[in-house]
């Protein structure tokens, strides 16, 4: 790639990274405020994990004299910036390592599900954008509406049931079904279920279809037709690539939310399941770590989108 092409990307990357930093600061603040307002004193629990002696002294002080909220926030924030997210109340292990360990599983689940969603939505959207509503595309659209309204937990049961009875594989914890014949298939189930049942497919289809339709009506597509060129070559970037990356960035939070349920149904050892467990145990440090890590995931998605947009769109660097 030429230098001239890299410069705008670097620019956008730095701008997005700054925005990400600002947003993560905001995220941490929101998390803090929620816990600060909550009854009880979650922060005394939080600060127990602080390793340094000074911090511990600070807590002891705090037990006597209540510290101001911003002092608490700042000390928590500095702790986090040093990689100290506290320790889990339930397991006593450091939150950061715990959350990162399961975060990878959730990342796999999220990316996989996103692919499944796109594999279903893109063909339907393309077909109905090109052909309009007809005997084939209308039932497909309706089908998308129905699966978008499907409660994902119940859909998970159906898939599990079918799997159990068809393949004789029982829903064991992720990875532990390894001696069995179709074990790898079992790992794919939650990905499939979340990809189909995350509730966004009909919306994804509609927005992709609208974008594609808009682009197909552009003057430059008419020019491409008039010169006998392949239309998809000319419409691909604006009609498909950009909207798809936008969808990916916009839907990551929804899929992460769905992951909480799907991981529960399938015993998938990810962040969602950990968040569920933590919410049951009121294990604040863990759930805070998860909130922040999932915000990082979301920002990564939008970073990816911005980079693709700038790389593809020559005008973007001028905007």
């Amino acid at each position, binding site marked *: 790639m030429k230098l001239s092409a890299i410069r705008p990307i670097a620019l956008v990357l730095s701008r997005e990274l700054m925005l990400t930093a600002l*947003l993560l600061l905001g995220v941490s603040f929101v998390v803090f405020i*929620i816990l600060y307002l909550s009854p009880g004193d979650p922060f005394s629990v939080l600060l127990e994990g602080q390793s340094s002696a000074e911090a511990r002294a600070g807590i002891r002080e705090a037990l006597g004299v209540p510290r101001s909220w911003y002092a608490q926030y700042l000390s928590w924030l500095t702790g986090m910036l040093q990689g100290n997210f506290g320790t889990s109340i339930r397991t006593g292990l450091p939150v950061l390592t715990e959350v990162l360990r399961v975060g990878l599983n959730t990342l796999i689940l999220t990316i996989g599900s996103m692919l499944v969603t796109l594999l279903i939505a893109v063909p339907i959207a393309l077909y109905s954008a090109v052909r309009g509503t007809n005997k084939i595309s209308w039932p497909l659209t309706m089908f998308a509406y129905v699966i978008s309204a499907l409660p994902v937990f119940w859909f998970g049961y159906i898939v599990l049931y079918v799997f159990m009875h068809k393949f004789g594989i029982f829903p064991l914890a992720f990875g532990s079904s390894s001696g069995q014949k179709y074990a790898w298939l079992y790992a794919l189930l939650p990905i499939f279920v979340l990809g189909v049942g995350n509730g966004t497919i009909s919306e994804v289809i509609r927005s992709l279809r609208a974008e594609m339709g808009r682009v197909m009506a552009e003057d430059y597509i008419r020019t491409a037709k008039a010169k006998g060129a392949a239309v998809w070559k000319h419409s691909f970037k604006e009609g498909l690539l950009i909207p798809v990356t936008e969808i990916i960035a916009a839907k990551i*939070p*929804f899929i992460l939310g769905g992951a909480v349920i799907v991981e529960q149904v399938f015993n998938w050892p990810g962040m969602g399941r950990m968040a569920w467990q933590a919410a049951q145990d009121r294990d604040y440090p863990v*759930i805070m770590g998860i909130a922040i890590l999932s915000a990082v995931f979301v920002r990564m998605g939008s970073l990816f989108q911005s980079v693709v947009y700038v790389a593809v769109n020559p005008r973007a660097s001028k905007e």
Partner: protein
Amino acid sequence: MKSYTQISGEIGEFSDLPFWKKADLVDLAYVGYGLLIVTLVVASYILGSFNLLPRDPQDLDLELMMAPPGTAGHALGTDFMGRDMLSRLIVGIQAYFLPGLLAIGIALLFGTVLGVVTGYRGGKFDTAITYFTNLVDSFPRLVLILLVVAAFKPSIYYIMLVVGLTNVPVVASLIKGKILFLKQKNFIEADTALGLPTRTIILKHILWHNCRTLLIIQATLGMAEAILMETSLSYLGFGVQEPTPSWGNMVQAGANYFMQGKFWPSTAPALAILFTILGFHLLGDGLNNILEGKRGA
């Protein structure tokens, strides 16, 4: 006078006749189905709140557990404790109806105020709104709700507060877009030139005449989300708790029997969720297609 591009635009606008006719019918069918669901939900809510139920939803009948639909005295069968499914489904609406309205109210009220302020003033407000939107979008909603649940207590009203607040930016950006559009068309300028007070312009001309349908559509879609969140959270055990029925905890409670091949106790509430959310989605999209003139389906 039609210029070339306008004509070619029309070519796109008119499409093959039967499909357009069909598409219109499709939208009408969407809205019709949606209204049917809304009526059913509201009627069931009223029945439930006056306790006008076929049976007592808490009445155990250990003789008649997991009866299939159509059993005498239990039109939709019974659950794993022999409680009447139909009654429990009707009462289950109590779990989300008022909380859902609360979520919608919060989203519409704050969203409208924020949208009007940013659309009207722009500048710094706009930057602030963009930041706020990005901030809200950075949280997966379910994770945020779990955080709130962990910090406070598992209450449906806390959950709906979060649902409502996280929908504020959506409504705000729609209202803002509408105002910017009106500004571009010089409607607002014309109003100001007429000497109308700002209050009249905003309340009557902008909100009532131009944002009414948009707000209705957002309300329907908001209800769909509220139902989804309530059922999800109740399924996870953080929403409405047994023995009070909610569609979510009914699915969860029936799940143990699902693997044994006894589908009905969790399938009935799941279908209720499916058809209801579908109804609100179709109502919103159908109205959008018809009233706002956008083709989606």
